[in-house]
């Protein structure tokens, strides 16, 4: 892993963020503007014109775009049309709620998903394996919103134990976290299991046993480090997954986070807020992928050599 390789990666990552932002910028403007949302259907033509002039919406898209880029490079990402505050502030205010949700979910997903995947692979073809995989396949094949709605029906409507929406107390966390964890842990469990099964039947596992390691030593010292490689590579995919999960889950449970803000802002064409959120999302995905690449190189010596030679 040399520095020119890293620089190339970072440049490519920045290009990706730029492209995603541009794409969203154009799509938003081609699919309607916020005038109606803000002024209502009854607004007079003069008011509409004044509003459009104020926000620069009367300019050609090309001009709007270059203004946006210029301002963005100066750190100004515009003002929320709906709230009148800087868009960055609007998003930042919602960020902690979303991050808490994501962090709890992530920890649970990793712990539950990876360990049950490991367990299933080590007891391959036993009842333990079958039961874990039954749950995993069920969780995996249900869309997030179905899981969310089922949980609400059971725990909130039927049993009345947990609130179905809002935030504030620890009880509010349970259903959103469960919703996201069920789906994501299922994916991790399946993936970890297949990665392990692949590794457990590799010839070098025979060597590990032949040299006198016990089965558990062989698993710990030889199977786990090899199985970690594919599991790390799906971390990049997992960030996308957890963001998508958060958007849906926050919408279902009325969670006051960035996910719900995104849906709301798209609906009302609050351009700048959507753009800020998209930049956040693409940056976090790009950073994760960079991290995964570096980790991958550290875990698998075959990879870093190939890349170093490039």
């Amino acid at each position: 892993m040399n520095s020119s390789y890293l620089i190339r990666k970072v440049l490519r990552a920045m290009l990706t963020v730029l492209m995603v932002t541009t794409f969203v910028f154009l799509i938003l403007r081609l699919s309607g503007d916020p005038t109606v949302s803000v002024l209502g259907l009854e607004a007079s033509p003069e008011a509409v014109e004044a509003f459009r002039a104020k926000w620069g919406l009367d300019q050609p898209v090309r001009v709007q775009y270059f203004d946006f880029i210029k301002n963005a490079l100066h750190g100004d990402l515009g003002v929320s049309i709906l709230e009148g505050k800087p868009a960055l502030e609007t998003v930042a205010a919602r960020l902690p709620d979303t991050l808490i949700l994501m962090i709890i979910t992530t920890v649970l997903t990793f712990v539950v998903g990876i360990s049950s995947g490991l367990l299933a692979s080590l007891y391959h073809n036993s009842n333990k394996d079958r039961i874990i995989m039954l749950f995993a396949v069920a969780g995996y094949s249900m869309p997030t919103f179905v899981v969310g709605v089922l949980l609400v029906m059971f725990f909130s409507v039927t049993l009345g134990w947990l609130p179905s929406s809002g935030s504030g107390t620890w009880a509010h966390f349970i259903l959103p976290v469960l919703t996201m964890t069920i789906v994501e842990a299922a994916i991790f469990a399946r993936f970890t299991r297949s990665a392990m099964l692949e590794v457990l039947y590799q010839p070098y596992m025979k060597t590990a046993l032949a040299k006198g390691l016990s089965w558990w030593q062989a698993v710990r010292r030889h199977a786990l480090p090899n199985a970690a490689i594919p599991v790390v590579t799906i971390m990049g995919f997992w960030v996308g997954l957890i963001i998508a999960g958060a958007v849906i889950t926050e919408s279902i449970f009325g969670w006051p986070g960035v996910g719900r803000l995104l849906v709301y802002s798209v609906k009302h064409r609050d351009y700048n807020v959507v753009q800020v959120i998209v930049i956040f999302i693409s940056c976090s995905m790009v950073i994760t992928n960079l991290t995964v690449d570096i980790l991958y190189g550290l875990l698998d010596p075959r990879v870093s050599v190939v890349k170093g030679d490039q």
Partner: protein
Amino acid sequence: MAANQKDEPLLEIKNLSVGFNGAHKGKPVVCGVSMKVHPGEILGLVGESGSGKSVTCYSVVRLLGERGWTEGEVIFDNKDTLSCLESDIVAIRGREIAMIFQDAQSFLNPVQTVGSQLTEALMLKKDLEKRSSDIFRKEAVKLLTEVGIPDPERRMGEYPHQLSGGQNQRVMIAIMLAGDPRLLIADEPTTALDVTIQAQILRLLKKLCKERNMAIILVTHDLGVIAETCERTVVMYGGKVMECGPVEDVLVNPKHPYTLGLLSSKPRIDKKVKKLNTIEGVVPSPENFPEGCPFYDRCINVTDKCKDISPPIVIEGMRHYFCFNPVKEGMVWK
């Protein structure tokens, strides 16, 4: 058999049968194999692909995998390795009986350095707490030197994909020597290598056998390798032993027609032959093994009984074979 009676065999396989659950219609792939390995000898195990050589070797150290089952006994140190406790067989592996394989690179962990795979094996043998990692390192380097790896200090930090096939096999041998075993099972250790490297590895094995008084079971399908390397040989076919004895007897005066067939399908420098013979037909798959001799349908000496009745053992001095109608002096394969 009579000859080596003076020393106790190091390993004795008695009437071993092996099969795999859910495969070959429940039929065993190895049926009633017996052989002895004496301390410090190189025993050649030869036969065509699919004759059950690898399976026999894996059963000795119980590495058949979860679907494999065994019958019979494998006696090592008055213990039956097939039925002893899991902890006993773990203690035997590496320290008493070690094993090397055909494609060394895929049998080495791709994400661990040569050095750490080697020191790991050393640490298993030695008392962990009493020794510093520095001592293990020194011993690892010593082993790499012993197996003929040039520049061992540097190689310690490299990964298997950075080494050649022959070097990987040497590393593999070093790893397996770490436990100072009394028996090394070498399953076609040179088949994947080119001829010069093959010769070097075989020479290395011979040297180690002598210097360490370590017995070796050398699996191969190359009679030339047997002739050059081994003292005794076991010829296997279709999951059974065909014949067994000192190399100079078995390869010069084969008793079993199968051995004769193998010999005449090998090009020879000392004898001009117009056409290289081949044994017609293929090795039957385990589900089609007959009750009697598995070679009956390809045999030039076949009799009425061969298919249905297992030929009894015929012992002649130090050798034995299983055949109703053995090869007569001067017979050729045609």
